[in-house]
Structure formats: C-alpha cells, structure tokens
C-alpha cells in the first residue's frame, strides 16, 4: 500500500500468549475502507493431525479438549460421526440423556456470554467487571443459572469441565429414574430465572444494523434441532449433513494462512442462535415460543445485535428440554450400545452453542482414524463477521481509538466467537498510522 495515497491502518490485535494468533486489520484510504481482514486462531487443524492414528473411541475425549466451554458439542459431533460409520443409532433414553447434557451446555455457555460479556455492550460499560457492580442482581441470577447448567453437565457427563462419561454408543454409566425426577424443582426454579434474564435483555436498545444474511442451521422434523437434522438455509439449502462439502467450500484467505468457509457460488453465511431461531422458531418449546411473541420485532431477525435475545430464548428452550427429559426418562437397560468395528467414513453435525459443528472421520477395519475433519462454528462465521465489520468500519475510522475498538469488538462479540485455544486475555490496541495525504 502506497503511503502517499493517504493510507491509514487500524489494527486490533489479540495479543494472546502466542502473538499474532488473531487480529483485525482495517486499511483505509481517504476515509474509505480498502481492506479488512479478521483472523482468529483456529486450533482444529492441529487436532485433525493429532487424531490420525488414534483409535476411534478416543475421538470424543480428544476433540472435547478443543473447547473448555463447549466440550459436549465436540463429544456429540464426534460420537455421531463414529456411530454413522458403525451403523449404530442411539435412541430412547440414551438420546434423551444426550439432549439433557447438551441443554446443560447451552445454558452455561449462553448465560455466560449474555451476562458477562454481551450485556455491557448494550448498557454502555467498557468493562464487564464495572457492570457487575451496578447490575449485581442480574449478574448473581445469571451465575445461579449458569451453575444449574454446569450441574446438569456434571450430572450426565460425570464431570463439569471436561465430561468423561460420554462414549460412542451412549454413556459409561446412566442415572436412575428417581435421580432424574429429583431435578424437577431445580429446573422449574431455573426456568423462572431464565424468564427474568430474557425480560432484562428484551429491554435493551438494539443498534440499527441489518444485513441480508444467509442463515444456516440444522432442521429436525419435530424438534428445535440440536443433536441432528438436515442442513438448511434461509436461501434454499436443504441437504443431508453428508453433503456438507457439496454446499460449503473452504477457501484460502489472501495474505494469510487462515481458511474461511462460504456457501459455494454465493458467499458468507451465519450459524448460531440467530440462524437457529430464524429457521426453527416453529420448533421451540411452548414457553420459549410464548416469550418470542413478546418481542416487538417480526422474524426473521437480521440484526446480529439481537443474537443476545436469541440466546436468552434458547436458554428458556434448553431448560424446557431438560424438564421434558426429567419427566419422561426411564433408566435404559444398558448404558451404551456396541457393534463390531468396521471401516468407513462417517459424518456428524450438531448444534454447538455457537452454531453447527461438523465432524468427518475415516477409520480402517481396526478402528484406527485415517482422516479427520473438524469445522467449528466460529470458522464458519468468520467470513460473515468480516462482512459485518466492512459495514462498521467506515463509522469507526473517524472515531477516537477507544471508541473505535469498542465498536469493532461489539461487532465481533455478537457472534460469541470461540477462541478456546488463544489462552490469554485479549489486550486490544488500535494503531493509527499518520495520514500523509
């Protein structure tokens, strides 16, 4: 870039323990954005290599380590892909347990993002710690609700941080019917807290910002899809998950090592709570659907800032799913199903809190992994996040450093990006190059 053309560079760096893992680069010339690049460190490549040569039964545990916030999602997508290879179907109470486990993770993950990170954007706080002082009641209620999500994960998954009870074909051990029923009062209490959280969030002012997004989510015949479904989009995609690569393609970002995804011959797409709500609102549980009616914005919601409200509705939904399981569950005869191993390729795709998480594995006749592919939701959203930032950037160019950083962060935070392996707190700084025009 020629300096004499009046180039100004804004750089938002994520200075993680390893520098340069991710950054937002905005390059502007005479007040116009000419280049914009968002890079977030993507650990799955490492895990794909790490998985090759391992036994297929290890995949759920190894991939769960990619993310300390959504290990259940990784375990579920990995199990599903392996079960797809083996021709094994997990149904009845074992499937119900998976739904309950996943509900716990949604609650925990969504509530944290809503209350600790996203809410301050709407309430005008630079720091979430600062907000915690003024909104003590909401923060404490959120922590109780998050705790409930943690406890659900511990109950079914055996451990809350990295659940250990999950295996291909089911679980290592399962709860008894009476243990399950005992959850009812806590979940009913949790549902009250979730409604309070939703009403708090509904009172926020959402900035005017709409885009013509292509929303992508799983679609299930009866349920608000979490564990399985067909891949559908708001612009006509409707395929089996096996066809993931037929509709989406990875492409190399110029001047970077990063790989982004796009819909073939179309472009960016959005996965996550907003996509799910827009595509599957008719499958929400009764109370969640009732609350949705209270929101004075007609669907589809094309404003990414409203993702916070979609998350709040999904927390209510997740609690109702857990309640349904608690009321109907009967102890299964065996904690898992097992069939002889066979060679093949299988696909798994489930709705992680941040959107669809796709896994594909090839194993040989001894069950050894020959090939692995993992596509997390954040990787899929990156292209769309950049598109949003393109819209944001012109306003940001004229603003002081603090304000510019804050706005760029907000546009990114709408997506609740997963940066699990960027191990350190972000130290964001904006760098202005002097305008030499």
């Amino acid at each position: 870039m020629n300096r004499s053309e009046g180039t100004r560079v804004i750089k938002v760096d994520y200075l993680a323990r390893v520098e340069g893992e991710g950054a937002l680069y905005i390059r502007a010339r005479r007040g116009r954005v000419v280049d914009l690049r968002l890079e977030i460190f993507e650990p799955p490549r490492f895990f794909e290599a790490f998985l090759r040569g391992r036994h297929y039964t290890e995949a759920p545990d190894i991939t769960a380590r990619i993310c300390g916030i959504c290990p259940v999602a990784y375990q579920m997508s990995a199990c599903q892909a392996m079960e797809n290879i083996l021709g094994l179907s997990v149904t009845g109470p074992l499937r119900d347990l998976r739904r309950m486990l996943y509900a716990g993770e949604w609650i925990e993950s969504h509530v944290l993002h809503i209350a600790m990170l996203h809410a301050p954007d709407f309430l005008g706080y630079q720091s979430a710690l600062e907000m915690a002082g003024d909104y003590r009641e909401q923060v404490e209620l959120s922590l109780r609700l998050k705790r409930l999500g943690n406890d659900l994960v511990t109950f079914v998954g055996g451990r809350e941080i990295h659940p250990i009870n999950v295996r291909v074909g089911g679980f290592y051990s399962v709860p008894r019917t009476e243990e399950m029923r005992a959850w009812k009062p806590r979940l009913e209490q949790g549902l009250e807290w979730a409604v309070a959280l939703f009403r708090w969030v509904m009172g926020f002012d959402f900035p005017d910002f709409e885009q013509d997004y292509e929303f992508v989510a799983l679609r299930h015949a009866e349920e608000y899809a979490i564990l399985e479904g067909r891949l559908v989009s708001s612009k006509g995609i409707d395929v089996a998950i096996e066809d993931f690569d037929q509709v989406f393609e990875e492409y190399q970002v110029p001047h970077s090592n990063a790989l982004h995804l796009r819909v073939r011959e179309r472009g960016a797409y959005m996965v996550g709570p907003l996509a799910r709500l827009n595509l599957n609102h008719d499958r929400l549980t009764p109370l969640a659907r009732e609350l949705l009616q209270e929101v004075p914005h007609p669907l589809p919601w094309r404003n990414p800032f409203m993702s916070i409200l979609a998350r709040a509705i999904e927390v209510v939904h997740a609690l109702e799913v857990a309640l349904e399981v608690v009321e109907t569950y009967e102890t299964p005869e065996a904690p898992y199903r097992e069939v002889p191993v066979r060679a093949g390729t299988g696909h798994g795709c489930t709705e992680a809190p941040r959107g669809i998480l796709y896994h594909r594995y090839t194993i040989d006749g001894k069950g050894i992994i020959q090939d692995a592919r993992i596509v997390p939701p954040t990787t899929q959203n990156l292209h769309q996040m950049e598109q949003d930032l393109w819209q944001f950037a012109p306003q940001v160019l004229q603003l002081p450093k603090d304000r510019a950083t804050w706005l760029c962060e907000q546009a990114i935070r709408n997506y609740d990006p997963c940066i699990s392996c960027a191990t350190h707190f972000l130290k964001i700084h904006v760098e202005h190059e002097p305008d030499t025009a």
Partner: protein
Amino acid sequence: MNPTRHEANPAPGEPPAPKVLVLGLGNRMRRDDGLGLLALRRLRERHAWPEAVTFVEGGTGGLALLHLLEGKSHLLVLDAIQAPHPPGTLVQATIQDLEPIQERPLSVHQLTGEDLLRWAQALDLLPRNHLLLGLVPASVEMGEGLSPPVAASLENLVTAATRILERWLAVPPKPA
C-alpha cells in the same frame, strides 16, 4: 444427583474448618500452558489430602469456573504466568499484586488465573486467603509436553504449593 456431605459443626470457640480449592488452569495441548494441570495432578497424588481440600482441573473452562469458589475459605490457583523473568521461574501473586485492567475479552473462553482473581473479587467470591502460583512458560505452541526449563522447575511449583496447603491446613498431610 451430586452427593452431599454432612459436615460436623465445629465445637464452640474453634475456628471453622478451612475449605480449600486448588484449581489448575491451562490447556495441555499447548505445551507449557498445561503446567498448572500437571502440577495439580502431582500435588494431588503425592499426599493423602483431607476432604477439606478440593482439586479441580479447570483447564480452559474460563468464566465457567467462577462458581467453584462459592463457600471456599482458601483458593490456590496453579497456572502458567507471563512475567519478565526467565522461563521456569516460580511466580506468585495475590489480587493486590495485579494491575487494574480495562480490556474485556471477546469470548468467555478466555480466562487466566489473573482474570479469575479479578472476577472473583468483583463478585465477592474471592477468599481472603488466596494465591496465584505458577511458572513462567517458555513455549505455548500447539503440542504436548513441557519445555525443558519448565519441566525442570515443575517440582519447585509442586513443593511451593504443598507448603502453602500445609500452612493453610495447619497440619502436614500424610504421605499418600
């Protein structure tokens, strides 16, 4: 359901029994970042610790770990700590030693031992007796296994952690 323990009330005049949380943080798929988890494991296995001590592999659980502090009288966090010292140097800090920060993470995934102390303080969850204890990392690239300087110092960390727990519990633990 989670098992609940019935605990005896302390006799009148006796101080309440300590409830200690030892939390290991980090990602063991990122070389030295996992040192807190390895130290936690060594520490836990070395002695027959009383029930008053809870060991948790917090990993990369981020803000999801905050509730673990509820009801605890003592907190020991083991983590990799960035500091201007050579790799493997033993570093410790309390909340008073930490600089105030203004930045906010983009994701709830991001939480270091420092952040945990700050959040815990803001939410009145931070025990008065707390310590962040760790080593300066040399490499946090993707991969398994500690770097040589950190591997050589891990025992220092485990020894220091043992001393702190002994002091907090006021009785030396029995060997495992």
